[in-house]
């Protein structure tokens, strides 16, 4: 029994430790706490923090804190692009050449001035790394730096909206000198030879208000204030992204003051907090959306590829019911959401008409209905889940005689099948890279998404040619009003018999300590959260 005594001693220590938590709220520790922002998130899938590699979600927050881009959005005003590293810019009439003039005050955390060569090198690295966000730089033909303050970006084909791509944190500008000293390269074979991603996950080489101090994968990221920040000083001295895996635990930790912010949570979780005086709910409309697609390829599904059938499906869906599937679901009225320029309004939204849908099916020779299949993901990262929406679509279509078999698979397996153009119908979760109406380009004939549904210039169907022509004009249209209108008309037109149905999105809502101020201006769908804009009362 004597051997048990040491065990008992350790156990006693273990148990008493439960009552001996660190008292970090007194004196200097209290001051340090007030100047530290703790962001409780599930770090499961987060990192690496190399802005040219990471593309999972929170990297946008980290990119915004540690790096700068050429241009930015002011809060959620997606209609207007404002200066960041570039103090001014011009777009050539050919809609292919963008010329930026850098702000001479811009400096990296090392104290070096940001130069055009840093921008050229960064954009080239983004493209050549061939990482998850490299596709963003795909349309770029060349980046040149004719002088230290001027950057010229030339696209392969016209696209005036590409200016808004430069808001994206993956177009962050790195300090070339620091990054190359730690293994980074912009060489054509950077995918093989660049070794800096590991270093850039535990450090940073940017000009943002913060710099990365340490990263413990899946556990904790610490950022500290950049001593050489060139923009107004941020309030918080230290930012900690702390792994708190479950929403319940995040809310409990928030109420106890252990964390200051939660990650985006479902409205059903957030609503009970509305009466809590110590907690506030913040966020912005979500761009992560649920989308229904129908094949246009007769060989994939000869019934589904008919115009009357696709029109019937638009009419068969219970849009109101879809919007009520879970608290907080924001119904989209088309392929462009109402909260960005060119968005389809509620008045233009399709309305359910089951009888008309049945008539259309009968006109297509399918009065007895038909069998088809819908692919979707079983991911439960969002509430409602894609599977919830798929089941709703299945029920709605059953009312008009279309018998849908749902093929739900783990997300990667689902994407593999979807990308191989093997789905007759698809219910997917998507996320445009930036909030501009031109985000529907991939869904138009020959676009990457459209090709998966067999919609191409070779198989444009009854409407593809018209949409393609309108899109071509929109991409080169320098008149902003006209440009937005063109995109709007395409999206509104697709509500009738297009192969896509924009269903709904989930708001980017989270809970925060009530003393945290500035959240309204700090949240948008590109950077998600601009931590430097926050302060604590």
């Amino acid at each position, binding site marked *: 029994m004597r051997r048990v005594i040491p065990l008992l001693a350790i156990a006693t220590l*273990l148990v008493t*430790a*439960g009552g001996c938590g660190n008292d970090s709220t007194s004196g200097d*520790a209290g001051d340090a706490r007030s100047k530290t922002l703790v962001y409780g998130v599930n770090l499961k899938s987060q990192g690496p923090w190399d802005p040219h590699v990471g593309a999972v979600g929170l990297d946008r927050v980290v990119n915004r804190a540690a790096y700068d881009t050429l241009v930015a959005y002011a809060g959620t005003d997606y209609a207007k692009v404002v200066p960041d590293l570039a103090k001014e810019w011009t777009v050539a009439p050919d809609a292919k050449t963008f010329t930026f003039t850098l702000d001479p005050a811009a400096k990296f955390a090392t104290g070096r001035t940001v130069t055009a060569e840093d921008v050229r090198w960064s954009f080239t690295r983004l493209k050549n790394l061939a990482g998850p*966000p*490299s*596709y963003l730089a795909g349309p770029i033909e060349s980046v040149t730096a004719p002088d230290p303050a001027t950057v010229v970006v030339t696209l392969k084909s016209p696209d005036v909206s590409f200016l808004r791509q430069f808001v994206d944190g993956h177009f962050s500008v790195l300090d070339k000198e620091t990054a190359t000293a730690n293994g980074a390269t912009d060489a054509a074979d950077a995918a093989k030879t660049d070794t800096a991603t590991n270093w850039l996950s535990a450090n940073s080489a940017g000009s943002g208000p913060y710099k990365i101090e340490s990263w413990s*994968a*899946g556990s*904790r990221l610490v950022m500290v204030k950049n001593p050489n920040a060139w923009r107004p000083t941020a309030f918080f001295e230290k930012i900690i992204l702390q792994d708190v895996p479950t929403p319940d635990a995040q809310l409990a930790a928030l109420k106890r003051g252990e964390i200051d912010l939660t990650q985006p949570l479902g409205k059903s979780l957030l609503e009970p907090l509305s009466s809590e005086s110590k907690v506030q709910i913040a966020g912005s409309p979500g761009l992560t959306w649920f989308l229904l697609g129908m094949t246009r390829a007769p060989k994939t599904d000869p019934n589904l590829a008919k115009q009357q059938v696709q029109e019937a499906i638009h009419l068969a869906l219970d849009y109101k019911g879809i919007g009520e599937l879970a608290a907080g679901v924001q119904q989209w009225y088309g392929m462009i959401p109402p909260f960005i320029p060119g968005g389809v309004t509620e008045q233009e939204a399709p309305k359910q008409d089951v009888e008309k849908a049945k008539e259309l099916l009968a006109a297509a020779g399918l009065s007895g209905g038909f069998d088809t299949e819908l692919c979707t993901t079983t991911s439960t990262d969002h509430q409602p889940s894609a599977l919830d929406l798929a089941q709703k679509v299945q029920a709605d279509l059953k009312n008009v005689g279309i018998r849908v078999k749902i093929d739900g698979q783990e997300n990667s397996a689902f994407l593999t099948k979807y990308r191989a153009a093997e789905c007759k119908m698809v219910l997917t979760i998507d996320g445009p890279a930036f909030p501009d109406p031109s985000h529907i380009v991939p869904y138009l004939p020959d676009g990457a998404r459209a090709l998966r549904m067999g919609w191409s210039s070779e198989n444009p169907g009854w409407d593809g040619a018209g949409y393609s022509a309108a899109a071509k004009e929109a991409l080169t249209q320098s008149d902003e009003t006209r440009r937005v209108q063109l995109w709007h008309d395409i999206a509104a037109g697709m509500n009738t018999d297009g192969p896509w149905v924009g269903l709904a999105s989930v708001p980017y809502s989270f809970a925060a300590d009530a003393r945290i101020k500035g959240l309204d201006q700090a949240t948008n769908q590109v950077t998600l959260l601009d931590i430097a804009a926050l302060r604590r009362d």
Partner: protein
Amino acid sequence: MTDQVVTPAPPDGAAAETRRPLRRGRRGGRGRSITRRLVTLPFLLLGMTLLMFLISRFLPADPAVAFLGNNGADNQQAVDAFNAKYGLDRPLWEQYWIYLDRLLHGDLGTSISTSRPVADELAAAFPATLELAVAALLVSLLVGIPLGVLAAARRSSLFDRLTGGVTLLGVSMPPFVLALLALQVLYLRLGWVAGPGRLDPFLDPPPTVTGLMTVDALLAGQPAVALDVLHHLVLPAVVLGIIHGAFFARVVRSTMVDALRGDFVRTARGKGLPGRLIVGRHAFRFALIPTLSLVGLTFGELFAGAITVETITGWPGVGRYMYNAATKLDFPAVMAGTLLIGVAYVLVNLVVDLLYGVADPRVEAS
């Protein structure tokens, strides 16, 4: 695994139904047994790598899509670069050969999801799992042994029946259910234990020496940090400890009941020794021997079975690392983690078998 719990005969004979023939090998039998195990270990690990490799390659999902995402995988250059980087563009046998070649040179590969060397990531995660496994084992022994001993000493009493019911519940309950319940009640409702993670966000981790944060904190002269780590350790350790403690309790009770029927106990009673002494000194010693074998099995299981508990409680160990990796089809990370757990399991049990032979020389390692 070759491990099995061997119940030795009581020193002077117990109930006939509890007797099992002792395995008395020839002189040096234990040594040969250990040698045999060490020789078969590489083949076991080879089989494990092959199985994991084949599973990873035959899943109906494309790792390039999992890594690059729906948008990123539209970039064929990125897909090609990814496949080339991880050798996925080569024949299957060649991929496996390259994997083995690298493995033999100590290279566990690069994580697909984090772009960091898997060896570095596992080296950071393993001490956390080790710390948790040790703590959970302590809890399980502290819970299981006293319960088992007392239940056996008061056989057929209300306490015995209650213990039987509770321990049955403990061994039957899936770890994730208990973990969720404990998180809800002990942390969210009552606030008795620290929440997810290994350390309070406002405390800086101690300099890494052993990777065991409690030890490193003490080495760095930071007792407050060590206590905070212990505070965070309570939740996952209690969850795992209760599950395995219930198992210990049932085995100890069963062995103790056998022992208490034994002639040596009857003799002790006849000599007028106090009941407490008979139970605590004579019968308990007898019960400890099979328990030692169980400790080894349990320790190995704590490595392998901590995945759900680490994930739910946010303990940044190998289990959570592997869960994260699996959800992103990060094959190099999953394969290396599995290998690590397999090696740890085998080695721990080998050590326990050695100790078992030392503890009771009559019993040769089987």
